[in-house]
């Protein structure tokens, strides 16, 4: 059996982490191909139902990342995101969703290397934890045939 390639979805804000990931590119820092970035105006916009949706659709791990505290482009969006994350995490924990699969982090527009590092460590840890079969088992929709990494 080929090595397990986790599917990671990253929910990032436009102003810090998206720009930080751009910097990773311009700095030509290499990282694992498993991550797919979805751009949002602000982490404050990220409705955590989206995270559940991503698991629904077959994600093995999730990264949520935005501006550092006090650096939010919109003043306080990241604080709302952080607070929401605290409750969401305990709710996930209660429902039996493995919170290790969600990585919450701050990456600024200047932290290209940090972005690569976060992706790599997340991919490595999810690889270790394994595919998220438990979720797929309880998810209502039938699990699709795996045909890409």
């Amino acid at each position, binding site marked *: 059996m080929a090595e397990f390639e986790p599917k990671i979805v990253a929910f990032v804000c436009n102003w810090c982490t998206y720009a930080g990931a751009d910097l990773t590119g311009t700095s030509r820092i290499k990282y694992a191909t498993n991550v797919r970035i979805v751009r949002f*105006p602000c982490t*404050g916009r990220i409705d955590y139902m989206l995270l559940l949706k991503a698991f629904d659709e077959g994600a093995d791990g999730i990264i949520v990342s935005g501006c550092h505290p006090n650096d939010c482009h919109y003043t306080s969006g990241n604080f*709302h995101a952080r607070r929401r994350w605290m409750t969401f995490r305990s709710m996930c924990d209660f429902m039996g969703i493995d919170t290790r699969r969600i990585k919450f982090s701050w990456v600024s527009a200047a932290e290209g290397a940090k972005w690569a590092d976060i992706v790599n460590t997340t991919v490595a840890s999810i690889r270790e934890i394994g595919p998220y079969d438990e979720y797929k088992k309880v998810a209502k929709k039938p699990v699709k045939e795996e045909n890409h990494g």
Partner: protein
Amino acid sequence: MAKIGVFICHCGENISATVDCAKVAEVVGKYDGVAISVDYKYMCSDPGQTLIKKAIVEKGLTGVVVASCSPRMHEPTFRKACAEAGLNPYMCEMANLREHCSWVHEKSEATTQKAIDLVRTIVEKVKHNQSLNAIKVPVTKTALVIGGGIAGIQASLDIANSGHKVILIEKDPSIGGHMSQLSETFPTLDCSQCILTPRMVEVAQHPNIALYTYAELESIDGFIGNFKVKIRKKAKSVDEKICTGCGLCTTKCPNKKIPSEFNEGLGNRTAIYVPFPQAVPNKPVIDKTLCTYYTKGKCKICEKFCPTHAIKFDQEDEIIEVPVGAIVLATGFTVKKTNFFPEYGYGKHPDIVTGLQFERLASASGPTLGEIRRPSDGKIPETIVFVACAGSRDEAKGIPYCSKICCMYTAKHAMLYQHKVHGGKSYVFYMDIRAGGKNYDEFVRRAIEEDGVNYIRGRVSRVYEKNGKLIVKGADTLLGATPVEIEADMVVLATAGVANEGAEELAQKLHVSYDPYHFFAEAHPKLKPVETNTAGIFLAGACQAPRDIPESVAMASGAAAKVAGLFSQDELTREPLIAVVNRQAPPVFSSCVGCFLCMSACPYHAIEKEEIKNRQGEVIKTVAKVNPGLCQGCGTCVAFCRTKSIDIQGYTHEEVYSEVMALLNDY
């Protein structure tokens, strides 16, 4: 049926070196709704853009996906190209194949697969995109400047000189602020009034500036470019148009023992008064709280003597409403009074004064005409002690921050004392000397080395009176915390600079954020130092944090430049990526239930309550409404909304969910 055009860029070899672009184009071309899928060496080049434009026209595309570099780089380029070909620019999106894929991965199947996934995601998003139009907001090209200190004066003059109208309001009877009270200014020792008063006069005479003194902001409504402000012009009891400013009334007023605010209580004024001789406007006002006529019902001596019959006892406060496009807050700061300090005698001893009081003693226009004399008996102090950091950087006093200007003005005070009192002894107790600024440290060195001021590093624990002397007890921490006791004739406290009383109330009125110490908060500590979170409201001077004169002036000019930039347009064009509350057919009107959680989440106060009325005019439902002038499009409200009634254009639920679903599901 969607007709999406997908354009995959090689970016020279930047993308094609690791991603098989032809394969991406081929795979994506087979997706539902994709009408054309091509790859090209340079999409951003002229032939590349022509390729896109041609496809839009020939294939009748409903959406465009350009898979190339970061949208932060070329999104405007491609959106413009689409608009030129007649497609709504917001129907064009970019997939980031360069920064997020080709540059960060090695050449492999997985890299090409990731590129395909990224393109597919954006294709699905564009399918759900909606045509949007840029928001246009008209601009009223009049600025309101609140506060007539040096910051407000500078901001007013700069805006007025750029050709725009300015309304300057000042709560006191004269403009000038704290700077008009100062004796000389560091680090050049030039006379404060000499450099300030010409500017004050310029403000009064400028054709573009309407000056309202003795006036305060009553209320504010509206948003950037379109504020409506109400100004309360407090009754001066003097008709400014008739008054010639001769000053006869002030000499005849029987109520002569009122402590002068301008002289920090070290001199007296009358009930009808001009705060200082160089005041602008130089016309008196009656202090209603202390005037004998207003308090006791008879007197009217001023009215009898006024040669032009300008005294109007029946004058009432007037409220005027004006439309303005931008607001500059320059309300300044204040300093703690000596009664704030129990260890320095609660302000009971007249010879313990604040730095600002010392300024008045050292000022040529002050109560002692510039001679340093003790307030108690008028004697020249032979020994004087300056206490830097009185209250500042003291957690116990609730003022943990540095007041910034004290180190410099204390050095100046000690220097002025040495210049004016030959043979006098001066001591400065300090925590650290913070003299960052052009020629600042040299200035402090000069005070120590040339003028012989004794600097003692340590704090003063107590000041008390003994045999007509003030005993200052402190420690010298550079000599191993040796106790120091100085018998002084006078003590000057560099009291902490704090926010104005009422700053919090004003901030709430204007929806401007403020810090725990009630200083107004800038929008970004580094990159938006003069903006506030409320679009169209700017900050200048010490209302934001303790500031010295050069900084206040620089900040005021910065704020003025922002205002002039705003006023250079007839209409503000804004990205339509803002939140909207859905509307539905009656009787539902909107799925919004009116919980207004969004209102509490919004950092810009952009959410308003809207009442939906029936034909009889009765309110049948109250729902949220987004003010497009104020919304910045962060989307925090969207994640908060319990009924998913509010959505953000450009990142709608439909768009982002379809992205997530497309991302993980191959065709």
